[in-house]
């Protein structure tokens, strides 16, 4: 879910500084636009910088580049489960959101928000021009899908997994081997129904691991009765 990755290039370091120190400045708009393109090509991401740019577009709508906005939204989608996509939408005027490419992105977001993975991959296939423009898109969504599956399943049937991450057949076999070797996945034989994949244990799919919401009483409350006890 990497939100901000370490800066390697000099340009991005300067932009991050600009956003931190002088964000309400129309002159940095071109730098921020370049930074979006850089995030796309180098597979990095900065929500704060992108929000800063969307704000500037809000202040001066005639300078808005819908292409840049679309790229920001795709990057935000890739940040799921973080709510970045809606945070960006809050700053984009309604009439812009009515344009075709944005309507498509909103539909894609909707499918992901409501766990409709099959519909998502179908729609994404129809909109290759939008999503292929951003490298790493497929992997990011697959990561999100696995995240949701890990919240939900202890043991997941292979077809359900395949549909969620849009990988089948031999590619899926390879993928599963890799996950088993590196991420602690265990492959089991389901009863007659094919493969079952045992996902790593966490507090969400194994409630017994949840730290008990103990009946703790905060210290400040106890101090109330110190005078009485004393």
């Amino acid at each position, binding site marked *: *879910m990497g939100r901000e990755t370490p800066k390697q290039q000099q340009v991005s370091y300067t932009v991050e500084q600009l956003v931190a120190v002088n964000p309400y400045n129309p002159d940095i708009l071109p730098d921020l636009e370049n930074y979006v393109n850089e995030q796309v090509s180098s597979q990095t991401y900065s929500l704060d910088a992108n*929000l800063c740019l969307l704000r500037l577009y809000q*202040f001066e709508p005639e300078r808005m580049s819908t292409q840049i906005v679309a790229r920001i939204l795709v990057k935000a989608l890739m940040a799921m489960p973080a709510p970045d996509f809606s945070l960006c939408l809050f700053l984009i005027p309604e009439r812009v959101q009515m344009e075709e490419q944005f309507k498509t992105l909103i539909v894609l977001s909707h499918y992901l928000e409501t766990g409709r993975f099959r519909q998502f991959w179908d729609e994404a296939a129809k909109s290759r021009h939008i999503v292929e423009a951003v490298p790493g898109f497929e992997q990011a969504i697959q990561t999100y899908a696995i995240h949701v599956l890990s919240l939900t399943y202890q043991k997941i049937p292979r077809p359900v997994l395949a549909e969620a991450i849009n990988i089948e057949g031999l590619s899926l076999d390879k993928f599963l081997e890799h996950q088993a070797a590196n991420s602690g996945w265990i492959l089991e034989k389901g009863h007659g129904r094919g493969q079952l994949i045992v996902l790593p244990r966490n507090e969400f799919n194994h409630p017994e691991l949840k730290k008990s919401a103990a009946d703790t009483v905060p210290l400040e409350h106890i101090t109330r009765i110190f005078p009485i006890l004393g």
Partner: protein
Amino acid sequence: MAANYDYEEAPGTYDDANRQDLGYDPNFVPDSVKSFVVHLYRHIREKNVYEIHQMYEISFQTLSDRLFKDTPWPSVDAVAHYVDNDQVFCLLYREMWFRHLYARLSPTLKQRIDSWDNYCSLFQVVLHRVVNMQLPNQWLWDMVDEFVYQFQSFCQYRAKMKNKTEQEIALLRQFDQAWNVYGVLNYLQAFVEKSNIIQILEQEKEGGEQFTATDGYDYSGGSNVLKVLGYFSMVGLLRVHCLLGDYQTGLKCLLPIDISQQGVYTSVIGSHIATIYHYGFANLMMRRYVEAIREFNKILLYIYKTKQYHQKSPQYEQILKKNEQMYALLAICLSLCPQAKLVDETVNSQLREKYGEKMARMQRYDDEAFAIYDELFSYACPKFITPSAPSFEEPLVNYNQDAYRLQLKLFLYEVKQQQLLSGVRTFLKVYSTISLGKLANYMEVDESTLRSILFTYKHKTHAVDSDGKIISNADLDFYIDDDMIHVVESKPVKRYGDYFLRQIVKLEGVITDMDRIKLE
């Protein structure tokens, strides 16, 4: 004095200036006003914060009620010679003058522009000159609060282009820098930076600085003005970003202030409420419902216990209004994220009284439910603005509702996505285990749809917090093993500890009372 946030303002027409001049002589200075400015000027020069506060909070109010119910105070030119024509005092006087105008009357466009100029002059002085004053926190908060309010008011006013007169359009074109969003944000940012407040708060944690301990006041002969304005500007920035719909950045601006503790922000009730209201609202829009519920609960309890002490204050109405709005927001949060145990008994009973029925209907997620979500959101939300300059091309339109409509639309969109969750929750409450097939049958959907619903449930109830961690806020949870759903209910833990503490305190109170009777 916090200004009236009512959305509907009479449009500032060109005639207002004439109407206000009629029966009102801006150069007439009643004796009480002369006395007021002379004393206030002296107290400011002598850095007598207590007296300044009394005059600012009480005398100004009293005189306004008695003499200036529906006219402005005397012009600054008329009083200047009573105060040595002191530039800074005149700027402060004008700031109060405009605040009074906005609260009691309707400012004209020219007056709005003049008020902007006054803020610019006043802020330039504080930022670039050594200001040797100590002003009460109430006043410094009101300055920031009013500054943001007038900005919001101007954006609303400017966005109603339809009935603007030619003179107004000419003025808007001419003074296009007045209340421009860059200026507003940069002033607030400048206060934060120039005051070094973020570093001061950091150093305070390590014991290197004194700020909170002295309520922001400077007891070593310096001035508190820049520091405290810098501090309150962080709340101002949170507020402006909420008005723009940028919740993430708004919360970031507030980060240096630790709201789990008392601080300078709690030293003024208006600031305390504004901070938590916007903090809670931003968290609500970012789907961090648990955080919003926690903070709303705390402040609503605080207001419940302390509002009696503010009955005489000019902020009282505003406190009550924000109180009601936060109950509405709390009702929304709890309907989207049932977490009854996070709410204090007192707050809960108030909530039931005000919104019990509506909350029941909201959780049905039908058309009526959406209407109620719409109603509560619209009632309680900030007055969102469109910050860009208007188009002067025909046809002139009103676009003052655009920003609000967008936020509302996106909010309801999120509510809609959670529509199916209420249904699945009802079923999960009844079963400890159930197969996907069976549950799909009961819910009259196919298995694939049921899986999507369950994924949605998991995704929506596991929010991402500010550190990027996943936090579950599900009161009812489950996991799936192949095709079997296992339900896990986190039982509401009986708060024995709390109960005993309360009883101990109560008993002690009874014993004390009985002792008192014996003595009599």
